[in-house]
């Protein structure tokens, strides 16, 4: 018994060094590998058709994307929605193509928003699944659209004009961001998946 205790000091130092080797092995090396794959900064090249009325220039649109992302963080949407599709549990059937390392290497994913919990569905392929109007109505009060929803209402991003809620800039930014999520995957030619082919089977 006393034998092992004699080397306690060695163990303490070894223990602390182990931590650094773990940082190198399981963080530095994978990060180095990933950053060599591809990093693309350009989050949008033009304003999508549906947002032409809201944002005049690409720069305005890009600013809105970042604002939407910031609100997505501030409201902890990312604690109820994940942003990656796993190659398991039929997820590619439900959500769309499996997430690839390169697709999230851009400025809108700094910090990353993978998420670890799905109270609501994954949003990494949200773009184009619902219309903008659906998204506004849902954001204003989810239970109006999906009665059993447990998603909070974000009515403070709307102002009431003539008894009708009208989206403020913040709401437009959130919806622009939601409609952006996954849009790059579809039109990126090097993606090995064909988004259109894999659709949810019709509801029984």
């Amino acid at each position, binding site marked *: 018994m006393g034998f092992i*205790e004699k080397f306690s000091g060695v*163990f303490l130092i070894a223990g602390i060094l182990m931590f650094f080797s773990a940082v190198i092995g*399981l963080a530095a090396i*994978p990060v180095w590998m990933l950053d060599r794959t591809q990093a693309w900064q350009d989050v949008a090249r033009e304003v999508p058709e549906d947002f032409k009325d809201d944002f005049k220039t690409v720069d305005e649109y890009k600013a809105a994307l970042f604002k939407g992302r910031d609100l997505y963080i501030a409201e902890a949407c990312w604690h109820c929605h994940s942003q990656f599709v796993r190659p398991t549990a039929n997820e590619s059937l439900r959500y769309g193509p499996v997430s690839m390392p390169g697709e999230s290497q851009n400025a809108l994913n700094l910090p990353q928003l993978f998420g670890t919990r799905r109270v609501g569905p994954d949003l990494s392929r949200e773009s184009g699944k619902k219309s903008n109007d659906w998204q506004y109505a849902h954001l204003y009060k989810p239970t109006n659209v999906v009665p059993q929803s447990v998603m*909070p209402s974000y009515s403070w991003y709307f102002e009431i004009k003539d008894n009708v809620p009208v989206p403020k800039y913040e709401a437009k930014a959130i919806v622009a961001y939601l409609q952006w999520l996954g849009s790059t995957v579809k039109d990126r030619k090097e993606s090995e998946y064909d988004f259109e082919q894999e659709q949810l089977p019709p509801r029984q």
Partner: protein
Amino acid sequence: MNQSPQTTEAKTLVDYQIVTWHFLASILYIFVAILAGLSFSLQFLQKYPFPGVELLSPGRIRMVHTQAVAFGWLANGFFAVLYYVVPKLTGNRVLHTTLSRIVFFAYNGLVLGAVALILLGHAQGLEWAETPAVLDPFIAIGVVLLVINLMVPIIKTRASKMYVSLWYISAALIWTPIVYVLGNFLPQYFFAGTSGATISSMYIHDLVGLFVTPLGIASVYYLLPVVMKKPLYSHALSIIGFWGLAFFYPLNSAHHYLFSPIPMWTQYASIVASIGVHVVVYTVVFNLFATIASDWTQLATNHVVRWIFFGTLAYLITCVQCAVQVTLSAQSIIHFTDWVVGHSHFVLFGVFSFWVTAWMYYLLPRIWGVPIYSESLARWHFWMQTLAISIMQIDLLSAGLVQGMMWKSLSPFIDSVAASMPFWWVRTFTGIMILVGEVCFLINIYLTWQDSRVTKQNSLTPQPIGA
């Protein structure tokens, strides 16, 4: 609190005032955490108490909940324990009592600031690191100061053999600032997407594995023998456990993002290492149980031992769970579900909160020089929390299985939400039980303090009862 002039060596060694302050701050935050968690759980029943209030948006409340648990409740509790244990074990005082006070106010000011800024919508988008990015550098500085304050007495000891608690504490003190800086700055400013997630996973894991776990284990390794007045079963075993922790825990990181785009070899490595964690768990659990077994009767007579016992049992259960849930086949179903939520509640509440509570029951009455006001309230507290967390655990694990299976079977998403409803009701109910238990605790602690004031008025100067 006015301490009587300190005379004996034992009394000047430990700065009881700072220990008390940290414990009281800790108790304040457990209420913040419980109330926030409880409110958020009501959102899941479509009964959120503050609908349409931007400042109390459910998502923000959820982040306040986790921040208050980790940095308010547990961290303050552990700091209190450190300010007591380190001087006791090394025979040296901490570097400077003024520094302790500065760190106390700065740290708690920052945590309160973090809560306020999160409510105002300035959270950082990284799990367990929601502290707004502007505050992070100051927290890092605060932690470094704390580390210096506590490392100096450890370095000053010339003893050839240090008690195992000191191994864990020194390692944790060195790891924590590095982990904090790593996890808060790199993914925020330098590495996007998948690379960022690789680093975040390391932070998520190391915060629990290299800050909470070693300090928790260090604290029970100290408290259990002292409160039972029995020697620790085996010192050698405890060192093997420490080394296992240092060896395997940091390698576990990627298991928080299995099946993600992180390179698969990284994920495999973390799975293998997670199985290795069992070396740590079984040595620690065996050692603690064997120590308790040397006098089982104390479980019935001593409520501090009871808290430690259930914490240890919970530690064993969560870790066995870990070995199951880390496999890819299990991940396929349970990841993203309430299973994970159940697991983390069992770890942070069932294990570490129980151990911290044991410390409070042990130390606060001793500092105030009176026995605990009511044994029966303490029993209520214990059984409330034990029942609540056990029910919550079973409830959320089952909910997780239901959700995972329904997602895999491709039933419409909203059906899985509807199917979770009964489980979420039970969860809220257990949350209320936890609140009730904690109120018993608060009353008990308050009345104990009142007792000590009465004793003081009767001019029987309260003396901290040395352990």
